[in-house]
């Protein structure tokens, strides 16, 4: 007999999902009019029906946010606001398992990830920004600062609760109120977060959550009652938001796509680099804007690294996201799966050499085996376009400068990785790479204190740290 891991599923008994949800406006849940289904991408089970917010809903949410801003939140001392943030952070920790299970059901990511990464980090963002709430004059914006007012926030489906935390925590700490729209396919944890706001007795209207699709997002972006827009999502939508906001007085931050280079030099710690490559592209099914989707390998070690990488990929456990031993879960939506299939077909057609780890994919739900393409060059579409799935393009280089040139030869610039045991080389590469986040001998590490954001088409502004906070503040006299 062999060492097969028996199924070890996390229980879903801890969550209770309603058959239908409305919006969270002015501190209470209000019914929606039209609804659409939200499904578990691992088995296509309909989990619930989510309300599609129209103009009246968005108007009501903005009105509630404005009222809360004017009458309560902007008048409250930073110290008092901080108490609410601390309270939210603690409740997120207390209810961590509930959030983790719900996130995994709705998103398809492995429970190990939602349990060990998403939810703890979301709580950490609230703790971190709670500490800032009464120290805003030290955020680097000016000695006298004020919030923008009402922030409209649109977040993606890859890290639903975590992206909510990245947006809501700094906005609230700075004294803004928010109207937030979660992604169409992953609204459930945002709606559970609304319950947390109630539990924390957050003043009504400080956080408003409206659910819906791109049309709802567009209503938020174009709403005249909103002072600041924060968006995380695709570059294409980001550009259209930038166009819409350009003629207005709204402030804007964008966190968009990426095609990060993960550069492995021949003097790297190879086994740990392999782990970093795997974590870089297969973490969260590759649904990560900063994913290390371009492996740029020094030619002298390319064969050895690829052999080891393939062996390691056969160890990736693909399947039921609720199983505690699963490493790679479901693709979030049918639409995304089709996009991954389309781009990988282009990879085949352009002569890339596809290799996928042998694994049994479930028959129901949306799945894609961990895959690498070798023989990829700068002239391949899969080396340029964001696939946003568990697909790695492998390129090679001969000299350090060539690695940097290839890494920077992209319209994106969100993140990059450098693997070398030589400190001087890492520092040199860090200076040359044009990306907002550069990881040395690690990848996909996040912390609330560290600013995150992109160069070029990867976005405007930063989230996290003092830099991220400053996007929600303006210096008095600089309006």
């Amino acid at each position, binding site marked *: 007999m*062999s*060492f097969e*891991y028996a199924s070890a599923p996390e229980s879903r008994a801890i969550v209770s999902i309603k058959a239908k949800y409305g919006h969270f406006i002015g501190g209470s849940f209000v019914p929606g009019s039209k609804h659409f289904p939200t499904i578990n991408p691992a088995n296509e089970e309909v989990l619930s029906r989510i309300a599609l917010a129209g103009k009246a809903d968005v108007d009501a949410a903005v009105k509630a946010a404005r009222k809360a801003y004017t009458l309560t939140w902007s008048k409250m001392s930073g110290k008092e606001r901080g108490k609410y943030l601390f309270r939210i952070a603690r409740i997120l920790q207390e209810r961590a398992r509930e959030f983790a299970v719900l996130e995994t059901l709705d998103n398809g990511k492995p429970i190990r990830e939602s349990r060990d990464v998403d939810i703890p980090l979301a709580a950490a963002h609230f703790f971190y920004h709670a500490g800032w709430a009464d120290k805003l004059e030290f955020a680097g914006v000016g000695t006298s600062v004020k919030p923008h007012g009402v922030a409209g926030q649109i977040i993606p489906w890859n890290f639903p609760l975590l992206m909510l935390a990245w947006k809501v925590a700094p906005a609230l700490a700075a004294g803004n109120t928010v109207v937030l729209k979660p992604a169409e396919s992953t609204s459930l944890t945002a709606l559970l977060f609304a319950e947390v706001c109630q539990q924390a007795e957050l003043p009504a209207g400080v956080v408003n959550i409206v659910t819906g699709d791109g049309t709802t997002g567009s209503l938020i972006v174009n709403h005249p009652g909103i002072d600041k827009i924060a968006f995380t999502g695709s570059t294409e939508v980001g550009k259209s938001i930038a166009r819409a906001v350009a003629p207005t007085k709204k402030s804007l931050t964008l966190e968009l796509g990426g095609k990060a280079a993960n550069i492995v030099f021949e003097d790297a*710690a190879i086994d*740990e680099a392999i*782990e970093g490559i795997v974590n870089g592209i297969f973490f969260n099914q590759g649904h990560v804007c900063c994913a290390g989707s371009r492996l740029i390998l020094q030619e002298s070690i390319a064969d050895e690294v690829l052999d080891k990488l393939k062996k390691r990929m056969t160890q990736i456990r693909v399947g039921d996201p609720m199983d*505690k031993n699963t490493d790679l879960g479901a693709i979030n939506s049918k639409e995304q799966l089709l996009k991954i299939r389309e781009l990988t077909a282009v990879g085949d057609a352009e002569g890339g050499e596809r290799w996928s780890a042998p694994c049994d994919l479930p028959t129901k739900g949306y799945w894609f085996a961990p895959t690498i393409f070798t023989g990829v060059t700068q002239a391949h579409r899969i080396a340029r376009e964001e696939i946003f799935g568990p697909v790695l393009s492998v390129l090679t280089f001969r000299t350090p400068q060539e690695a940097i040139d290839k890494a920077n030869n992209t319209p994106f610039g969100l993140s990059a990785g450098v693997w070398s*045991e030589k400190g001087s080389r890492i520092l040199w590469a860090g200076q040359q790479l044009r990306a907002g986040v550069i990881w040395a*001998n*690690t990848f996909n590490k996040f912390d609330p204190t560290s600013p995150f954001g992109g160069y070029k088409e990867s976005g405007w502004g930063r989230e996290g740290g003092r830099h991220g906070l400053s996007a929600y503040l303006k210096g008095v006299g600089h309006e």
Partner: protein
Amino acid sequence: MSFYGLVDGSDASLKKYLSALPGVDKVGLDARAAMLATRSIKTSSKRWAIDTAISMVDLTTLEGADTPRKVQALCSKAVRPDPMDLTVPSVAAICVYNDMVKIARTHLDSIGGEKVGVAAVSTAFPSGRASLAVKLQDTADALNAGASEIDMVIDRGAFLAGDYIAVFNEIVTIRDLCGSRAHLKVIFETGELVTYDNVRKASFLAMAAGADFIKTSTGKVVPAATPSVVLLMLEAVRDFYTMTQVKIGVKPAGGIRNTKDAIKQLVLVNETAGEQWLKPSLFRIGASALLNDLLMQRMKMDNGYYSSPPYVTID
């Protein structure tokens, strides 16, 4: 000797071989070990893992106070870990000092434990601080007494002084002495080598010199068989197999006291060197207290409730 064609026995070739090894990133290695420790092993796989772990135990007593009867008692336990349940497998071997080898071998053979090996710690265990002549005599005594496995310690002083060829030659000499009579396990005492780079070097050095097994520790120094160190040594045997098509065994020893830790070790094996290493000929666990915890967990799986120390035998 050919040393798998990796080195020619000269200082220069050994240095070249060792300097070609990639470095180890501590943060990354520890992170991987920590991730693998989250594997959830339940029900049928837990039951399989417990029996497999029992069959891999090198049941050890290495005390100044060891007596013939103490060693005989341990032998009885090695053959029938649970006298009330004969479905429990025997352990792999007894591990003792060389003066106890004959007593152990004789007793094992007299109680039906012919298949249980006798491992002798050797080469001035645990410090390794003696002349080569003493180390050879120490090993020869154990072999003549019937040891089927020799657990030698490396000269950590020489290793840390950079005198790798001395460490290498000593292993080669002991290897020659063992010949086909005994398997050779080479103990690094990773707690004294300290850095992961050193552990990787020691692993590749010992394998090229002819070790059948590489072993973490003597059990006399802390830290001993940490998950990170075992992971690193499993990577080494995996890579050595790719280079030479020869499978070298791994033996963590020291600090593995309960079932949970033992199962974590098996997970490390499974997801690093691979399933082919999950057998006593390629993976051993040097331990004493561990066996009783494995037995209690096994009873729990059978009976549905936790047993207590009176229901397992003391050594």
